Every structure is written in C-alpha cells, then in structure tokens.
C-alpha cells in the first residue's frame, strides 16, 4: 500500500530524513519509534504533504501512485489521514462543519454525492459515543479550548468518520491518561481491517500494549536503523534507544 524508498528531506537547510525505506501492506499496523529529533514527525508531515519540507531524494508510492506528486488535499482525498501531534485550534469554525466538509470533499473526489445532513449527524453521534465525547463537542469550534486529551480524541473521531485507507498517527498517545489511552486505542483498533493500514508514530512502548503492531521500526538520525516484530518494542523499552543508535556506531 505504501512504499517509501530512500526518502530524503530537509527543512531550513538541515537534512532531517537521510534515506528512509519502509513498506507497509494493507491490513498491517506499523509502529515507528525513536528518540526526540530522530525525524519521526518530519516523516509523518512529509507523507501528508506539508510544504515546509524540501524533498531532496527518494520516492513514495501509495497504492501504486506517486504520492509526492499529489497536493496535500489530494493525498487526503486518496485516503491518507494524519492524526496530528498538536491539533490546531480554528476559532469560530464548528467541529462538525469542518468534519462534514472533509467528508464531502472525499466523497466528491470519489464521485459520490454529498452526505445527508441527518445521516451525518447520526453517524457522528454514534462515533462520539464510541470515543466517549460529550455532546457539547457538536457546538464547539475546531479544537477550541479543548484539553490535550480532547484534541487527541477528536483526531481519532475524525479518522473514524473519514475511514482512511492509511492512517498515520503522530504521537496520538502523548499527553493521554490511561483511560483516554484505552479509548483512543479502541478507536484505532476498530479501524483495523484487511483493506487498511495504520502507522503509529510514538515514543513509548505503552501504546503498543493496547494496539498490537505487526512491525516495529526504530527511526534514528533520519534513518530506520532496526525493524522487527512487537518484541522489538519491549526490548527497546528495556535497553533504551542508545542500544540501537550504539549498535549502528559499532
């Protein structure tokens, strides 16, 4: 589904990604772990099409299409979703309005008709219940005055409504208490499907207790240094990132 080959990117004159290789198949959940500043978020943003990054080499295909040739909104409509590490507030713009516009943009791109307002409200209420979100969410502005945990829930809610083929979740677990972590994990797990894939970007092994990954990768210094199954996460937790980084130096 997603194939990243020798991807290199820089921002403000600094090389961040220095040749990333990664292949994610439909039905899989991958976890990308790594220390701060290793390039995890950059990878997520580059895949989503943020323009602040300059691609200096490599290629990315998404379902056989050249992903890097698509604009951010086209990637989203093609089924790529990014759960933001820091979801931004958009004052005065209603949550539901944004989400409906997003869903309709996607449906339009797929040649489908706009979603019926009543159906949409029913859908979103059902998903909100699943995400343990209060009804007040319906009337509030996008992330306006939300707590850190509410913002993350909102990201997952949007994901559930948009049903992406590939979801990249950038530190969706950070800043969550244990109850919220369970809710968010349930949300992600409910989307697991042979037709979809999930890439979890995270610092901590903790999330992987709730969302079991098929593959775990360690990103450090702009490269994937080690890949393995879920036991790699446990080992990392025990031995720390220096173990991997040190291995490379040695």
């Amino acid at each position, binding site marked *: 589904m997603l194939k990243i080959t020798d991807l290199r990117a820089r921002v403000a004159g600094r090389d961040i990604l220095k040749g990333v290789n990664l292949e994610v198949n439909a039905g899989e959940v991958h976890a990308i772990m790594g220390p701060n500043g290793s390039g995890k978020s950059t990878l997520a943003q580059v895949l989503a099409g943020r323009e602040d990054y300059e691609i200096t080499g490599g290629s990315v295909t998404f379902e056989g299409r050249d992903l890097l040739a698509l604009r951010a*909104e086209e990637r989203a409509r093609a089924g790529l979703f990014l759960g933001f590490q820091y979801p931004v507030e958009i004052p005065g713009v209603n949550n539901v309005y944004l989400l409906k516009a*997003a869903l309709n943009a996607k449906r339009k791109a797929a040649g489908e008709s706009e979603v019926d307002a009543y159906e949409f409200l029913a859908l979103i209420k059902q998903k909100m219940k699943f995400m343990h979100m209060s009804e007040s969410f319906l009337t509030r502005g996008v992330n306006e005055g939300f707590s850190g945990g509410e913002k993350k829930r909102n990201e997952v809610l949007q994901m559930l409504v948009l049903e992406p083929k590939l979801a990249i979740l950038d530190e969706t677990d950070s800043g969550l208490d244990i109850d919220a972590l369970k809710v968010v994990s349930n949300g992600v797990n409910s989307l697991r499907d042979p037709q979809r894939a999930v890439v979890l970007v995270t610092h901590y092994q903790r999330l992987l207790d709730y969302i079991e990954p098929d593959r775990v990768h360690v990103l450090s210094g702009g490269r994937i240094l080690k890949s393995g199954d879920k036991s790699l996460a446990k080992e990392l937790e025990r031995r720390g990132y220096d173990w991997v980084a040190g291995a490379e130096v040695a």
Partner: protein
Amino acid sequence: MSSKSEEVVALLSQKYRHGFVTDIESDSLPPGLDEGVVTAISRKKNEPPFLLDWRLKAFRHWQTMREPTWAHVHYKPIDYQDISYYSAPRAPANAPKSLDEVDPKLLATYAKLGIPLHERARLAGVAVDAVFDSVSVATTFKEKLGKAGVIFCSFSDAVRDHPALIERYLGSVVPPGDNYFAALNSAVFSDGSFVYVPPGVRCPMELSTYFRINAAKTGQFERTLIIAAEGATVSYLEGCTAPMRDENQLHAAVVELVALDDARIKYSTVQNWYPGDENGLGGIYNFVTKRGECRGRNSKISWTQVETGSAITWKYPSCVLRGENSIGEFYSVAVANNYQQADTGTKMIHIGRNTKSTIVSKGISAGHAENTYRGLVKILPSAAGARNFTQCDSLLMGPLCAAHTFPYMEVKNPTATVEHEASTSKIGEDQLFYCLQRGISAEDAVNMIVSGFCKVVFKELPMEFAVEAQNLLSVSLEGAVG
C-alpha cells in the same frame, strides 16, 4: 511552494463580478460645482424653499472647509469641479408607479446583481427601495408598510409628502457643517431613503435598499434618514455595488438615525463597491458619514457592517448615546485586498447616565492592502455609570499587507468602565495545513478560517443577509493565501 503561488496569482486575478454598465440615457448635469448647480439640483426636485436654503448654507460652509488628511489613506487629490453632481435615469414623463413600469434594463441590472426584485421581495418579505444612481426607481411593499403606518420611501418623495418630518429631523444628527464630506453631501445630495416608524410600531419586515452607482464620473451623494419614534423597532439593510471603471468615483453619503424613547434601530450594511483592479486602478472612494442618535431613554442603535469593496473607505458609523440607559453597538468586518485602503471604525459618545456601548471590529488584510481601525470612545462628565467594551481583531493574509489600530478613549466620568481588547494574527499555516490534510481545498479552507474569524459579526446580520455576506467574503478573498 511555487505551484501554490501560481495558484494564488490565478485566483487573485478573479474579476469583479458586478462590473457591467447599464446602457440607459441619463439626465445629467455637466461636471462642476457652484451655487447654480446646488440650486439646479433643488429645482429639478421641486424642493420647498427651506431645503434650498439649507443646501446653500451647507455649500457656503463647505467652501470654507478643507478636505481632511488625518485618515491613514493615500489618494490623488479629488477635482470637485470634474464631477457631475446629478444623474437620473430619464423616465418617460413620469416616474414608474409600480415594478411593471420600471425599465426592464434596470430590472435586468438588479438580476445580475443577484437581487431579482420581484422574487426577492416576494420570497424574502423584503421591501426594496432601489436607488439607481440618484433617483429611486422602484419601491415595493409600500402598501403593507402603509397599513402599519410605516413610511418607507425615497428621500425625494419624503420631501414632497412629509416635509414637516424632513424639516424637523434632517441634519439633526449630522449637522451640515459636521465634516467636509457631510457638508458636500448636504449641498448636493440627490436622493436616498427615508424611514419613519410611528410610536409603538414594530416594522413588519426588514427594510432594504440597494444602491448602485452607474453613470461614469458621477459622484453619488445619497442621504438616508431613519426615525424610530417612541417604542418603535426597525431593521434596515443597505447593500451597495458599483460597475467597473478605470477612473475613481466619489461616493459621499450621509446616514442619520434617530431613536426616541424605547426605540430600536438596527442598521446593517453589506458594501461591495468596485474596489479597483489588482493593480489599484479605479475603484470607489467611499467617504461616508453615518451617525445615529439614541435621543430617548432605553433606546438602542446597532450598526453592523461588512465592508469588502471600495478603493478607499473612510467611514465611522457612530452612536450618540444621549438618552439614559441607551445602548450603542458596532459590529464590523472590513476586508481589504490588492491595493484597497480602509480606514474605518466607530465613535461612541456617551452623554446619558448608564449608557452602554459595544464595539467588535474584525479587520482582514490581504495583498498590498492597508486596513485601519480608528475608534473613539468618549464618556462625558454627565455619563455616570457608562460602560464600553471594545474588541479589535486583525487578520493578515500574506506578507505585503498591513493592519493598524488607533483606539482613542476620553473618559471624563470616574464611574465609567471602559474595556479594550485587541489582537493581530496571521492566517495560520498550521490551520491551513490542518484543513488541507482533511481533504478540504485551500480556497474552502481560507473561507472557513476567515468566516470563523468573523462569526461574531455575521451573527448580528439578519439571517438572509448573513449568507450573502459570507459569499461576498469568499469572492473578495479567493486565493488570497500568503
């Protein structure tokens, strides 16, 4: 980045949608201004002697005045002798008595503007007193209003049919010598709208006037006077459009509102005069004096404006809060794109006890535009317990535009409370990317973010016009992402 800039350029070059000229023979005065012209205007309109005297006094006063230069706007000097001060569509013998008699070309013009009179009137229950250049050509719903005792007619008709009301209230809020442009208007105003709502009457519908400047090189000097008598309520909407021309056109209007005891007036403006092209060529110079007086106790005047047009805007809808417990409000969205310059704001003059005022101003700048908020809150010694709340927010789109805020406060009563909040923000790359990542186009995303920014003001507009204002905003800002 480069594909984005190209896109922005393409979108920004979107043409003004209302730029067409209706080909109708005009009955115009030649350019120039002297006492003879003032007298000729008054004669053409068969005005009573008091009004001619009033005009001449204003004209003589105007000659002693100088054009103000304090506003943060720049333009070439205006040659007042190069303007024609009267232009009326030539009607066969008499003015039309009903819509059926109106020149079909005129009606087609309104249709292009998106306001088919018949339908709009019928469906929306809006009475439209359409001012085409300087003379009102169609008035609808006169009868229904007449039953309620509401007078809603062209200014000329009011002079003819209700001279006592005109003599009593004209210039009572904006005196002829108030400022340079008000004095000019007082001397040469040609038409406008008049509303009188009698005591205890709630006006049964929204009143609306569409102004439109058509003939080339015609200054439009309309005059609006709205009186809400004791306990009366009225909501009035003014919308403006002008065709596209290379020369700059002058528009110097005066609007006066009078609210007596317990009366309420809501005055909403959606202004999209031609703003000039993307190089700053042409466009309307909009120098307007709008002022309301809460003359009676517990009265309320509320101004809501959405300003997207004009090359230059010089406009400060104000409230004089004379009556005890009276309330003044000003809600404004001012958009300036390309080379537009807007210097706008309000004045709240607190005279009576326990008077309250609220100011919410949202300025949006894009392209090379300059957007200035200028506001005065003045609390006189007599205004014990007066309160004001002011909020000024500016949104910048792109690196070349500018926003300025000049809030003036004069507080002469120690029991008064005055609050001021201000913010300036750039349209966030993060906000934009967030929307794009959800599959929303850049254009829709900007509209959404800007609408959110303006929401508190749009909320104040009458329902049917809130939608229109939002559409207008999206046309004005299409692609203006920095």
